[in-house]
């Protein structure tokens, strides 16, 4: 049964909630219960933080493989997005000609259906990125 797997992560996936270490101020996404830099000093103290959903393309690729759940989206653009809050996120860039994507391109997160229904027959939602208006 895989439904709980998707249900568990829904808050962060739907609302971009990460954590901040109160000791050093570093913001993490996805949430962490320990700050890798501060260790024990941070345990039990990590605070929730809401990301703005804004960012810039840090790196990207155009995927031509047959990927389970993504066959009808191929070729699609995968990217690593650098956010102003600090953390980088992995996600697709959509509503764009793949050739137009470049490092440094401003994008923002939108809430979308992610993959075609998998074995469990449930629809999975989360964030994707679209280019900011020029």
């Amino acid at each position, binding site marked *: 049964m895989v439904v709980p797997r998707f249900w568990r992560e829904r808050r962060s996936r739907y609302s971009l909630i990460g954590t901040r270490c109160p000791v050093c101020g570093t913001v993490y996404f996805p949430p962490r219960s320990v700050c890798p830099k501060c260790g024990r000093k941070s345990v039990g103290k990590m605070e929730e933080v809401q990301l703005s959903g804004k960012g810039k393309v840090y790196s990207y690729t155009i995927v031509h493989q047959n990927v389970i759940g993504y066959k009808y989206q191929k070729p699609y653009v995968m*990217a690593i997005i650098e956010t102003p809050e600090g953390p980088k996120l992995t996600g697709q860039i959509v509503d764009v000609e793949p050739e137009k994507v470049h*490092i440094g391109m401003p994008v923002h997160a939108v809430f979308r259906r992610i993959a075609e229904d998998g074995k469990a027959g449930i629809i999975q939602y989360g964030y994707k990125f679209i280019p900011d208006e020029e």
Partner: protein
Amino acid sequence: MRDVAVIGAGETKYGEHWEKSLRDLAVEAGLKALEDAGIGAEDIQAIFGGNMSAGSFVGQDHVGALISDFAGLAEHKVPAIRVESACASGAAALHSGYMAVASGLYDIVLVGGVEKMTDLPGDMVTDILAGAADREWEVFFGATFPALGAMMARRYMYEYGLTREQMALLPVIAHKHGAMNPDAHFQREVTVDQVLNAPMVADPLTIMNCSPVSDGGAAVVLASADIARKYTDSPIKISASVAANDYISLHARESLTKSPSTIEAGKKAYKMAKKEPKDIDLVEIHDAFSIIALIGIEDLGFAKKGEGIKLAEEGQLYYDGDLPYNVSGGLKAKGHPVGATGVGQVVEIVKQLRNEAGKRQVPNARVGLAHNVGGTMTSSIVHILEVM
């Protein structure tokens, strides 16, 4: 801790083995290594087996038990433990076997690695391999392993001006060597144009910048160095065995163009072996994707950041060059049966150091380094071996 030596080594051919199962491959490699050491399975005291994902690839877990049983050990009650660290499972098993002998707990152990990958269609294999990344925060959103490698390559090109043409030199060199290795998955040479014009997997990586999906097994027999000469005239000492880990997901790292875990494992391995990069006569570097090999070459101290590709351009990476690189063919041409790869790299180095590598023999090889990584250079394991 006491010194540990390799006293036997063996492997199957890598490739698509329709006729051979997981256990066939493991047992074949294990028996070859034992025969090479001149001992029987009943002479070993423990087995450490590297395997990434037999549970997903062929529906078989408890791989240690299966292999030791079919290697003929069920009557001997010998412990057999599977070790997993994604594509670095092989080196992780070797690290475990090394510790077991160095600690004094056992005198002779068998270290194996095996993967049976070709029973499934490509999209399922891609999904299983993606399990080496963060399933919920990378793979869920559509990232595949080649896509993550491609994003490392794209960023490297942006930061250092690397071109696809330059990057293509690494698979060209690997295939040149693979063509001389009868155990390699691909035994044919390729040109830069063939690499560039091959089907795109994840831009900028074509199929020829990627390691293939292979079946295969590899094994070595380890013994404490003081008894090694009872079994062989040419024991090979393991002078360093070091593992290091980093953030599992690529996006969590400060840089996509270096691997802190490889840097750490490399530094500690040189210190442990009392060696420097210039003392290394040959390297087996983890070239699952061309970009990973390039970062590995730099992070292991063979070139400055951004300049690794010069070694390829200057011809230094060929088997008769200054830094013989992936003379086995590497993951690219020899093949990448993920759980076997790290052990197979060491099988190659042992053959080279014993002067038994045939056409691709590196002249006067006395010290070799193997670099095996799991994930997007998340887990890095470095072994240094030398003639004793």
